[in-house]
């Protein structure tokens, strides 16, 4: 984890506005450690791409400073930053062959012929496209173009590589394959990666840490498991993974836990993560796979009866939509490990969950 002194990239108090009225990025403070794979995740318009563009040098912060390896890069033009970048649509130069594309950053740096050819070969071998050097980008498939773009961003050994939704144009299978490939390349090379995506699966697969952006602010910055297991606010809980929300009101605080009243359904024991004082509204966040079906009496603090509204068979699990506590969009994921799951639409069942799986968060 990064400390203040050894941060490789440091945003401090960065703000950005395009029109002088609304802030696209509001007071951004972020430290990225050397060798880290950090993902900026968020919906479109959340400010993550703007942040990346400020780091690359294509946008200037309206306020605040960005440090790269301890040096302020606010006034440094993009070509002097020595940052590799992979663009959303690859941006391979269409009038050059794959090799010429890779040679471009080396020619700019006046790398000698022998050294240059060795580096190009190494980069192409790394993305397993050694035989395609003479082709033009137009003659390659989307996945191959993506790999060339990756090789081009890495061929000049930058210490920092930025990726702006690089897998957005690929189909699902290829995307998952490339995710692992990029992850392995990152592990093999000692390079810092800042990755922008709106795909949470991608972020969870690849990242050391994820910064969840919304509305120009980092909502939570944490490792993938932490983010999923312990979301700090309702936005993160909703954005990462599937989530059941129960709206209620805090009726009692009890140290780390609290009692929340769900109107017309009773009280729920929940973990007090991000709640105000007694009497304030809250949203309970509950992962669908943490809900137990027909718990033994007395084993769980929260037990409610529910009516099954819909059953969807998905092979490895059965997705069951139930009506509980006045919410009819409550989803329960029942693992299919016993072979058959006995739920029928219309049946009345009992469901329950632990206090620590139910997080009381802010009510947006």
């Amino acid at each position, binding site marked *: 984890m990064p400390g203040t002194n050894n941060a490789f990239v440091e945003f401090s108090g960065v703000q950005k506005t395009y029109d002088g009225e609304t802030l696209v990025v509001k007071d951004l403070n972020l430290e990225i450690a050397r060798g880290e794979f950090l993902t900026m995740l968020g919906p479109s318009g959340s400010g993550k791409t703007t942040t990346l563009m400020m780091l690359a040098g294509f946008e200037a912060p309206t306020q605040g400073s960005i440090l790269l390896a301890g040096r302020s890069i606010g006034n440094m033009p*993009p070509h002097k930053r020595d940052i590799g970048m992979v663009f959303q*649509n690859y941006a391979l130069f269409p*009038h050059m062959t794959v090799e010429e594309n890779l040679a*471009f950053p080396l020619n700019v740096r006046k790398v000698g012929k022998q050294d240059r050819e060795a580096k190009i070969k190494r980069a192409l071998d790394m993305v397993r496209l050694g035989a395609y050097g003479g082709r033009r980008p137009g003659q390659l498939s989307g996945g191959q173009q993506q790999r060339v773009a990756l090789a081009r961003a890495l061929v000049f050994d930058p210490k920092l590589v930025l990726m702006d939704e690089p897998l957005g144009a690929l189909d699902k299978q290829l995307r998952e394959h490339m995710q692992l490939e990029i992850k392995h390349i990152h592990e093999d090379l000692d390079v810092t990666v800042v990755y922008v995506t709106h795909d949470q699966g991608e972020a969870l697969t690849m990242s050391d840490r994820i910064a969840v952006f919304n509305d120009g602010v980092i909502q939570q910055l944490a490792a993938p498991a932490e983010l999923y297991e312990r979301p700090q606010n309702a936005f993160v809980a909703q954005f990462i993974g599937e989530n059941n929300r129960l709206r209620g009101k805090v009726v009692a605080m009890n140290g780390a836990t609290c009692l929340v009243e769900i109107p017309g359904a009773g009280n729920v024991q929940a973990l007090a993560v991000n709640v105000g004082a007694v009497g304030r509204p809250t949203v309970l966040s509950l992962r669908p796979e943490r809900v137990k079906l027909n718990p033994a009496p007395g084993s769980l603090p929260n037990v409610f009866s529910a009516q099954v509204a819909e059953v969807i068979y998905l092979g490895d699990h059965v997705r069951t939509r139930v009506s509980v506590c006045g919410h009819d969009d409550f989803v329960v994921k029942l693992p299919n490990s016993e072979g058959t799951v006995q739920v029928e639409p219309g049946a009345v069942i009992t469901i329950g969950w632990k206090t620590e799986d139910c997080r009381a968060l802010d009510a947006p």
Partner: protein
Amino acid sequence: MSTTAIQIGSTFEGIPLRLKLKRIERRQKMKALFLVLPLLLFILVAFVLPIGRMLFNAIHDDTLLTLAPRTMTALRGWDGKDLPGEAVYAALAGDLKESWTRKTAATIGKRINYELPGSLSEVISSARKVSLLPAGPYREALIKIGPLWGRHDVWSLLKRGTSAYTGYYLLRSVDFEYGPDSQIVASPPENRIFRDVFLRTLGISSGVTAITLLLGFPLAFLLATLPRKSSNLLMILVVLPFWTSVLIRTTAWVVLLQQHGIVNDALMALHVISQPAELIYNRIGTVVAMTHIQLPITLLPIYSVMRTISPSYVRAARSLGAGPFYAFWKVYFPLTLPGIAAGCLMTFILCLGYYITPALVGGPADQMVSSFVAHYTNEELNWGMASALGTILLTVTLLLYYSFSNLVGVDRVKMG
């Protein structure tokens, strides 16, 4: 199962599948043809046929064959060495007599006059005098009436007239002509003008093309990078001249550039010059006016190509370490080449045919091929020369286009 599949595959209702497909495709082709038929007919009747007919005039000339048929028949046996015999002269006398009565002597004279200047009046007077002549022998009498008929070159000319096809007009258009013995020789210096005219046409056209490119490229870049709203406004200003007639735009330049025009007055008032500069009725005026007219035509294809170039290419180049100029020159500029090619090609080809503008704002030494085509068509009524000049201009244009498209690749040229 497999047998049925094969049967279905090869026949359908007893008709082989391939035949069926062909029939359907033919029907669709006929439908498509039917839709383009009106335009096809229009182009054929209003464009291909008249132009083809005019081009044919460049090599086809049967004036002598129709107006002096006897002479032409008699000349077929002539060996071309000495003057022809009495029989040929008698035939000529017969033709001249007939031309006098049918008033076609001037036409014959004019045709001979093209190649032997100064012989028009002699032919007409010969025809008049021959018509008064009693019966032969004609040889001595004709030479006595008109010394022209004792010259060897006029007989070579008449002998060439026995064929309806002549290379004279085309040769003349590149400053060659037939010598006294029908050999091809360079034209005398006073007739040697067309190579200069062609070179001048190509020179002015390439100059104007280069200037429009130099002026248009930065403007196109500006238009392509500005926000849509302001670029639309600028674009209107760019295409505004398109909505004005070429004649008006050219005359406007006369107002601006003439001796006491706005430009000269302003320069003199600012004491930049002490005497009015010669800005019009010379090469400067021609190039300025043509550049103004052609600028949008060079600019628009470049602009439309630039609009399609994603800004991420230059960004990628910058992120890879290229400075602003290097990124522009190695990445952006090559991507605009198809637009540059299309714009320059269109401007260049259109410039080759300029006629009104050089006539209005150029001097005598700025007239391009088209002026000569017009001169031969309207004033001299020498359609052979007009057609020959046009043919050569068309051929040069097509050759340039061909070599150019081989160089750049015609599929890469984007016409707007």
